[in-house]
């Protein structure tokens, strides 16, 4: 186990497109809700998240290191349907059991060679 992933935007309850002012505002809101003296661990996480976003250069780096979420499809496609019919191809495949096509032991067809 290594360090768990933390999305600083999620910690500050922000969209990834948030402006600098919104980041600052969100930080203060979070600190008000989780003051260090009452909730030191949460405060630490909030502070760390803010540190990663407050400086524009560091924010660019942070943004590139964020994990991406696989997008859900814009429209839901029709799921595949069950096919519960009997297929003739399968009947004929099974009928191979009536023939020698799958047989592998042909010793009885060997001829004795003498020279």
């Amino acid at each position, binding site marked *: 186990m290594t360090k768990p992933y933390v999305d600083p935007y999620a910690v500050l309850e922000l969209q990834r497109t948030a402006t600098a002012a919104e980041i600052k505002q969100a930080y203060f809101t979070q600190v008000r809700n989780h003051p260090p003296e009452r909730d030191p661990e949460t405060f630490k996480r909030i502070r760390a998240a803010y540190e990663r976003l407050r400086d524009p250069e560091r924010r660019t780096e942070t943004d590139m290191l964020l994990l991406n979420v696989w997008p859900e499809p814009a429209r839901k496609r029709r799921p595949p349907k069950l096919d519960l019919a009997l297929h003739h191809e399968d009947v004929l495949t099974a009928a191979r059991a009536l023939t020698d*096509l799958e047989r592998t032991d042909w010793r009885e067809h060997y001829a004795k060679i003498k020279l």
Partner: protein
Amino acid sequence: MAKRKSAPAGKERGRKIDKTTDQRQQGLRAFQAGRFDSAITAWAELHKRDPEVKVALAEAYFRRALKQSASAEQLADMRQATTLRPDELRYQYHLGLALHRAGDLPAAIQQYQTVLERDNRWTGAGMALALATLEQHPHADITALPSITPDVRTAFAPVQTLLHGEVPPLNGDKPIERLWHGLGHVQVKDAAARETLDDSRTLPAPPATNVRRYYKGVAAAQTGDYATALRDWQHAHAADMRMSWLLDNLAAVWTERLDAQLANDDLAGALATARDALTVPMNNSVLNQLLVQTLDRGAHAAAATGDWSQAAELWEGARQTVSISSGLGSPRPLLHNLARAYEVQERWSEAADAWRAMLRTRPRKKTKQTDEDITDAQWDWVRKRIIECYKHAGQPGEAITLFRQAIKADPEDLETRLQLVDAFVANEQEQSAVNELQRITDINPEYTEAYLRLVSIYLQRRDWYNAATPLQKLITQNPQREDLRRQVAQLSLLHGINQSEFMLYDAAIKTFENGWQFAPGDYRFPLNIARLLLNQRQEQKAHTLLEQTLDLAADQPDAYIQVIDTWTIEDKLDEVQAVLKRAEADLSPTAEFYMSLGITLLMRTTPPPRLPSPFDPAPPPPPTEDEDSPWTQMAREALDRAVTLKPDDPRLAGGIAAELMSLRPKLALRYAEKSAEIGPDEPNALMLLGLAQALNEQKPEAKQTLRNAARLARRQGDTAMAQEIQSLRREIDSPLFGMALQMGPFLDDFDEEGFDDFFM
């Protein structure tokens, strides 16, 4: 002579006979050992004149064919056997089977008929003929076939019944009889199918067993038991059944299951389903979309708990799923995450590979869609990251090698060539980078990115002349690109300043004038040209340009300070006053503006301190302070104004004191006192005051002030600072102390940022 001649001829013949016997026996030994290749080689020529060997050779081909699986080689061997012995029905029959397996039904039917024409009791041929006929035409009437025996008719009757959509009767309890009956039940969706097909006895051929297993699943699904159905279908797939309806049914069950699990936030269940589904790779976009979604969610959850190994495994599965699917979109987000997961685990080579794979998803041509996706700067970041990862992996040259290989495969791929350039730069191989960029521009003289890199490399080398040519070309190619115009302007600015430093004033003016065209709103161009013109005594022109400077930057305090600085150098007090008046009219000058103004004036009008001489052990005297000069008066007024505008801010007065410490110690003391007065509880303000006192030869007062400052710092819990102040206090009596302060090292510690830190 004749005798002498005939003796060797006889010997020769004898040798030939020996050789022939050898080959016959050699072939036989190989044949008996099952080495049919060797037997065929030994008999290849001999069979033409030896009928026994011909029979043996045909058998060798036949036996070799039987050893092979269905293939072109098997068919060729069977044909050889029948060609050598067309009368041998065994060979004809097996050639029919081989053709049948190869899917050549008309030829197989022909062979079976040949066998049956000569021996209609050959049941195997009759059965195979019946099957091949039905495979060609499922509704053919096999009873009409010549030479078909009643046994064959009986055996194929249920098959024909099924092909006609009916349920064959259960004539006995043999596994094959139950299979036909069960399939009939499935056909008419009779629930009895489940029981009929629930038969574990062995069928004569594995494909039939697989069919039974699959339809057992279908029968279960017809009654709504999808769990059993899924299990049976998975078994059928594991036993190599690959019919499209099997894959479709597996996809349908897994899709339905995943959909429900994701909707119920049952991530663990969804992951188990996904892992199951991954064992059957299939190109079903709906299922694969759900799979990727599930794996991605699982990976995020694993990453959130720090289990990056698990996260990487899941993202790798998702990436592979996207790679076999059509219409799922770019794997870029997954590759990005995968690269990060490998990085966190310090699996640098794999991380580099993942970043590279991500880079390959970059579209060659920009479209509206991709423009919004990742910016050019972010792609640059990815490139650098690849190189970084290879460096961490201890393979700094790896990136270069990989990019070179890619270029070898596709020399026209300019994008990869650009990546190679970045790798060269990262590996400090600048000349190789320049060479590669030149190759790129040879291939495509319009390739903007290459010129930009070239400019960037030259600028880093401060090679203005070489940078100018590609930049000019860029502008010619893209006259409207604002970013390029800005770069040309910036380059011109740097180049002009460089020329000025080398006293190439005329050239510098031309460079600035050229650059100004590309950034007509940038006040630094007229300002710099004006400064150079003043240097050449062209005051009128300079005056006009400085007016233009202020027109362009009417709202920028720094521009006013720069113009004031310029006039101060020229000793033009009236011009300075005029500019200040204009600033006060146009701007609402802040405390910081007045502080900059005062310090600028003093810096330009105070003679520099004398450097200590190695031949004179006495410290140099402090700089002369002309308290009454109009420049000093104006500066002091500006500084006082600054302090008045921020009467409660000890940092401002302290900042002024710090700036003036080596320049004008007396004035520094004045502002240090002011700072300590405003912030009596600030250890920094007191420390600054102590230092200013020491510099003004008020050593006892300085010691006392520093003692108070140290005590204050200690009381506030800043022991490090208290120690630092104490150490300064101990140095006060040293002759080097005053000299050091006058020469300015002290100021390095008290730059604006540092000072802010002290007070924050």
